[in-house]
């Protein structure tokens, strides 16, 4: 029943291949969707041209492409992209760290849970984005206020999922630790936390989407820079092509972020059967 070293190496290699295959499958998928995208752009271009749709209603893809090029060439998009990207990522990271930490404390201590949980339930139904104007008043028009808004919007799914994940640990694993006389912290670190990881990641996946949303809406409410700010400006100038150009940048940003999330997930959760 023993396996030699080469076979073990083979298994390790196949696990790596498994991960690579996921990448290649997704690249085939993205080729297909890219094809669909090109088709759509062509039809759009022809239709706008044929029906003489005015630019301030619906610009042609070519006009959007030109606007996109100009935006990057002038450096305008670059600067504003970095502003929004910073807000989004900083707010998201804050939400991830604080959300997991609070979730851990709530799940570990009965008293804290009793006090905090009713508030969480009440707050969960509240649209967090509605407090954006307040935050702008308190924290100003700069980047800081947006980081706070993003963190507030993104923290809830992380928090709730962390609590759920930490509490979902099956009794058998806890019994095992207990039979060894493991302390609370040791059990948390070696069993509860890793066991909660799939839940935490599910929360992070929702949080990253909300983070972009919070960033843009925050800028809508009050800002000096950022992609959302650019959209507002273009809106005032009826520069619809630029609005679309910014939306393209935002779309690509969102896709890149969720790709990074998925890569992190398959790296940390390779052992989780329900994912593969």
């Amino acid at each position, binding site marked *: 029943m*023993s396996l030699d070293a080469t076979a073990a190496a083979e298994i390790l290699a196949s696990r790596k291949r498994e991960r690579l295959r996921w990448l290649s499958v997704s690249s085939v998928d993205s080729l297909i969707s890219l094809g669909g995208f090109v088709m759509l752009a062509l039809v759009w271009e022809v239709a706008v041209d044929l029906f003489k749709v005015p630019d301030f209603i619906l610009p042609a893809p070519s006009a959007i492409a030109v606007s996109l090029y100009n935006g990057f060439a002038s450096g305008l998009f670059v600067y504003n992209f970095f502003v929004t990207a910073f807000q989004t990522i900083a707010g998201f990271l804050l939400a991830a760290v604080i959300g997991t930490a609070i979730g851990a404390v709530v799940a570990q201590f009965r008293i804290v849970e009793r006090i905090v949980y009713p508030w969480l339930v009440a707050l969960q139904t509240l649209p967090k984005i509605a407090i954006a104007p307040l935050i702008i008043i308190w924290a100003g028009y700069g980047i800081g206020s947006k980081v706070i808004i993003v963190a507030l919007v993104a923290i809830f799914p992380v928090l709730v999922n962390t609590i759920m994940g930490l509490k979902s640990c099956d009794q058998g694993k806890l019994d095992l630790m207990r039979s060894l006389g493991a302390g609370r912290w040791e059990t948390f670190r070696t069993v509860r936390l890793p066991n909660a990881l799939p839940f935490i990641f599910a929360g992070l996946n929702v949080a990253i989407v909300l983070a972009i949303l919070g960033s843009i809406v925050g800028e809508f409410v009050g800002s000096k820079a950022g992609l959302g700010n650019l959209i507002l400006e273009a809106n005032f100038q009826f520069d619809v092509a630029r609005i679309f150009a910014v939306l393209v940048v935002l779309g690509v940003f969102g896709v890149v972020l969720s790709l990074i999330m998925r890569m992190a997930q398959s790296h940390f959760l390779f052992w989780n059967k329900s994912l593969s």
Partner: protein
Amino acid sequence: MIIMAAMAGATPFIVNTHAQKPVSAPVVTLNDVTKVYETASGGTVHALSKINLAIHGAEFVSVIGASGCGKTTLLRIIGGLEDGFGGELVLSGRKGGGPSRDVGIVFQDANLLPWRSILQNVLLPAQVLRLDKQASLARAHELIELVGLKGFEDKYPFELSGGMRQRVSIARALVHNPSVLLMDEPFGALDALTRETMNAEVLKIWDATKKTVFMITHSITEAVFMSDRVIVMSPRPGRVIAEVDIALPRPRHISMLSEEKFGAYTGKLRRLLDVGTD
């Protein structure tokens, strides 16, 4: 060794003496152990009633009994997983319950940590008990080889079959070198064929490590095949109806299953279980 038929009305059982066993201080002693659970609805469940047991060093003892009769409860008490119970437990000379590093437990589910490699899973008790790293590592490798999983050290639980996972959990239960090994229906989830192989393998491991084994099983055949002594429990509240010494020679072999003597034991145990049920 004593056999009792404490049950009122039951015919007293004939004693099978197992002459080779040296008489030494028992590793595990239970005196009048009683357990009452409080249920969520406010009622009580009388799970165990006055259990008296003595398990000696290097002895292989099995427990059989109807479902819900308190076998797992008994094992959990010995394993230090139940807080309140009546009576006295003495384990390796230490009185009272609570976790003991002299015990290794194999649960019905392998209970491996899926994010840890096989080697890391086997090393878990050593980590928790802060044992010497080098020595534990060497021992873990030895045990992995003993359970027939050499070469699988760096694999993860999801890459293993159910039987392999249970073997990992046996290696894990032994890594801190406890003198008592508790097993709660370790092969319940396995198919009959794998189960037979595992039975033989556990006997081999037992022979190599000389642990005191306390095993719960639903299979009379398994109990007879593996044990020095089989304890029969009554339905709830669980009591010890009888203890039957299995005087079959060792090492045991699968071919013994068809022997007449073997059949006599299984028949005897089945009758005892039936008496307990009505």
